[in-house]
């Protein structure tokens, strides 16, 4: 601890620091608000937006639970119920679980690696706007009674024009286009940031585990999201211009949809699950007061999980007529992926075992993760068996399993992460006793909601039925689940109250309220616009826990324009300086034009042609350099060839 306390903040002269702050700040005013590109501004908006979708998805779930609370429920009809579960699943998967991880990452990754920004900050803003506009389209459609109703994976033939003749499925398909486009762009932003913008000295071997998980996840995004975009494009062309991809009468094939969807959909589970592994590693290390045991094993386990995740998709299709030998392979792969996850869990247990534990709210959520995820993982192993899966397919057992995995694997650590990093975002700590109420109500409510569903599934209750007769005797367990769902709602409400109160009146946090070891805790909370007054030089995995090395910081980066340091991929050696673009309205305007194209194409295929014109104009305006900025830049330009000639 003495090291931490004796570490002085590296700082610039006050006038230089003020200039740097101004350079990296977003412009004021309404126009400035829409022009913002600072990664922290965009990320906070992104997090809030995904959280709003989380709450909306939760309200939909409450409506589902009200309807199912007793036999012969009359709260909603069958049609509304179909929309409710489709909207709930689509919202939670596409508008919350994957994007919230990217949103958190775009805030934390630059701070953790000692960078001033993400790479491509305007594209980062564009991705945020595309995501937000796509989510808004989905909910506007829902309120106009054209909410999707074919399930969150929209299987054909149910989702084909013949069985879903209204615009509902088209809305769903374009929501996919919006969100996946945003997700893919964020993946490029994050990969480039991580590989090229780490502070000098932060070799890959010194990178925080959270950053490793984001890197692995982003690569998964690159190779999986294209599948669902291709699938949803084929679906919408089948519906709008009569292509025949999924029509067996004209040589199409319904299982093609399932293959394409789950080639994305299964890795997606891990895209949701892997970033929280990094959050857990950060939290476990800090609250055990020691680095995580087995750094190399942890990194390799994350990479192995990312690879195996692509070999599992058929286990969603065990109830189809695929060859038995093929199913056997996917059973084996589904069992195998438990190995890297187990390695990580053992490493965390070893860390906690050998550390000095500080049981604060973030750690509580992580401990709940162990309990819930192991339960969800074990039911996953059960479902990986073809014979058992055939029995349990499309029952509430699957609903229980997937919520144990996704809530336990992602939402619990995510809440822990909010408690952990909230002081960094706002400068104030969340209230600890409200946090404990939040945690215990969430934990109890969660198990009360979803544990009975295992039993209901074994008793044969199918998923996606809008009601059931009293004679089935499912009423008691369903009522318990509904009580549990409202308990979760209360706990989330407490969280919102905690955030709103603590944001203004919470205990001031200072730079490093937890005594953590990674770089983001070396800067003030909330961080200045440029993150670091002086970019640090990294000498260790947990720089704040080790004696400072020399040189300690970088000098010579400009304060009067957005200059960043680019370093080499593996060893983070100095490479060059780079000017990042300044704030601009163009990403927002281009995102609006792109939205017109996507939404317009639901109604006429020609929108793809005429709406491409404003998109092209917007993108060109975005790219076109400003004369005054270029003149300023050429004044201080250094060509790589000049440097080579000198040396």
């Amino acid at each position, binding site marked *: 601890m003495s090291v931490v306390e004796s*570490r*002085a*903040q*590296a*700082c610039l*002269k006050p006038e230089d620091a003020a200039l740097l702050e101004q350079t990296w700040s977003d412009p004021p005013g309404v126009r400035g608000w829409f022009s913002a590109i600072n990664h922290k501004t965009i990320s906070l908006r992104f997090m809030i937006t995904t959280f709003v979708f989380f709450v909306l998805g939760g309200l939909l779930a409450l409506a589902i639970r009200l309807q199912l609370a007793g036999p012969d429920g009359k709260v909603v009809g069958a049609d509304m119920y179909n929309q409710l579960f489709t909207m709930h699943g689509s919202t939670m998967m596409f508008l919350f679980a994957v994007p919230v991880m990217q949103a958190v990452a775009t805030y934390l990754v630059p701070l953790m690696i000692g960078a001033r920004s993400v*790479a491509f900050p305007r594209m980062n803003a564009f991705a945020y706007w595309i995501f937000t506009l796509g989510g808004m389209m989905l909910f506007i459609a829902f309120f106009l009674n054209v909410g999707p109703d074919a399930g969150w994976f929209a299987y054909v033939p149910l989702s084909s024009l013949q069985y879903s003749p209204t615009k509902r499925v088209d809305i769903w398909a374009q929501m996919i286009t919006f969100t996946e486009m945003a997700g*893919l762009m964020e993946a*490029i932003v994050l*990969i*480039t940031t991580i*590989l*090229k*913008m780490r502070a*000098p000295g932060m070799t890959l071997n010194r990178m925080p585990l959270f950053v490793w998980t984001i890197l692995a996840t982003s690569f998964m995004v*690159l190779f999986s999201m*294209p*599948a669902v975009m*291709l699938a949803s494009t084929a679906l919408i*062309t*089948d519906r709008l*211009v009569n*292509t*025949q*991809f999924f029509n067996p009468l*004209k*040589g*199409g*094939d319904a299982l*093609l949809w399932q*293959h394409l969807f789950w080639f994305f959909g299964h890795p997606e589970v891990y895209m949701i699950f892997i970033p929280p592994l990094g959050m857990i590693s950060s939290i476990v290390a800090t609250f055990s007061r020691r680095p995580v045991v087995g750094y190399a094993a942890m990194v390799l386990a994350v990479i192995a999980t990312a690879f195996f995740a692509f070999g599992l998709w058929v286990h969603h299709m065990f109830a189809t007529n695929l060859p038995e030998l093929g199913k056997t392979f996917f059973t084996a792969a589904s069992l195998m992926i438990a190995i890297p996850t187990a390695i990580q869990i053992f490493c965390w247990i070893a860390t906690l075992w050998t550390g000095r534990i500080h049981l604060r709210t973030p750690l509580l959520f992580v401990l709940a993760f162990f309990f819930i995820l192991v339960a969800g993982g074990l039911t996953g192993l059960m479902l990986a068996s073809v014979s058992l899966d055939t029995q349990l397919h499309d029952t509430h057992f699957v609903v229980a399993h997937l919520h144990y995995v996704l809530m336990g694997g992602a939402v619990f650590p995510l809440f822990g992460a909010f408690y952990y990093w909230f002081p960094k975002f706002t400068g104030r700590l969340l209230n600890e006793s409200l946090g404990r109420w939040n945690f215990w109500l969430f934990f109890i409510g969660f198990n009360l909601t979803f544990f009975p569903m295992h039993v209901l599934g074994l008793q044969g209750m199918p998923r996606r039925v809008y009601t059931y007769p009293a004679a089935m005797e499912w009423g008691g367990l369903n009522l318990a689940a509904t009580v549990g769902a409202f308990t979760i709602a209360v706990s989330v409400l407490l969280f919102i109250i905690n955030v709103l109160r603590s944001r203004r009146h919470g205990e001031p946090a200072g730079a490093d309220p937890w005594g953590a070891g990674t770089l983001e805790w070396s800067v003030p909370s909330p961080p200045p616009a440029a993150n670091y007054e*002086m970019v640090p030089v990294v000498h260790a995995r947990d720089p704040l826990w080790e004696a*400072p090395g020399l*040189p*300690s*910081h*970088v*000098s*010579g980066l400009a304060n009067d324009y957005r200059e960043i*340091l*680019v370093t*080499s991929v593996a060893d983070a050696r*100095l*490479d*060059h*300086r*780079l*000017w990042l673009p300044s704030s601009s309205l163009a990403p927002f305007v281009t995102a609006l034009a792109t939205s017109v194209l996507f939404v317009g194409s639901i109604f006429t295929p020609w929108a793809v042609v005429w709406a491409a014109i404003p998109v092209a104009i917007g993108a060109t305006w975005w*790219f*076109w350099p400003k*004369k005054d900025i*270029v*003149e300023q*830049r*050429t004044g201080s*330009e250094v*060509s*790589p060839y000049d*440097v080579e000639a*000198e040396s």
Partner: protein
Amino acid sequence: MSVSKNDKPVDALLDVKGLPTFGFGHRSPMWWGTMGLVAIESTVFALAIMAYFYLRSHAAAWPQTGQPPDLLWGTLNTAIMMGSMIPNHFAKRAAERMDLPRVRLWMVVCMLVSIAFLAVRVLEFKTLNTHWDSSAYGSIVWMLMGLHTTHLITDAYDSLVLTVLMFTGPLEGKRFVDVSENAGYWYFVVLSWIPIYAVIYWGARI
């Protein structure tokens, strides 16, 4: 560990003032961004090709309707696209030597070639001998053609904007990196055509 009033570092600082302000190839973040796009779009093409063979494996006859596409225009366009790699190579090399007159020259040549392959592409569509709505075969052929044509159009438009910028300015060293990366992307667009050509024109024959 702070900078004192007289600007003398109290502590050893790593001075980066002498570093270049841009770099070519994988040194540049732009290269990584472009490679990310290439990875995404290669995945799309690969999955569409897999869908083609998946549908073919389930079909009694292939093509399900009509004749295979005529070889003439598709093969000619393959030759044009392969030929376009020559001016593209010179444009990339000129950019990396920061030789503005040659960059202008070769980019204009690239633009002329792109007009040629876009024109022949129209003729290709006319001789596919199938419609997107006639069968799943027609759908996947049009999907592959549509995906690739979208890339041709966007790449031609990107290159056009960059070519205009090379003549009008404002220019700086970093723009040569853009030209170099744009040329790298061009390679991807024309080389990805080879497997798609093989599938569309020969997958319906062999």
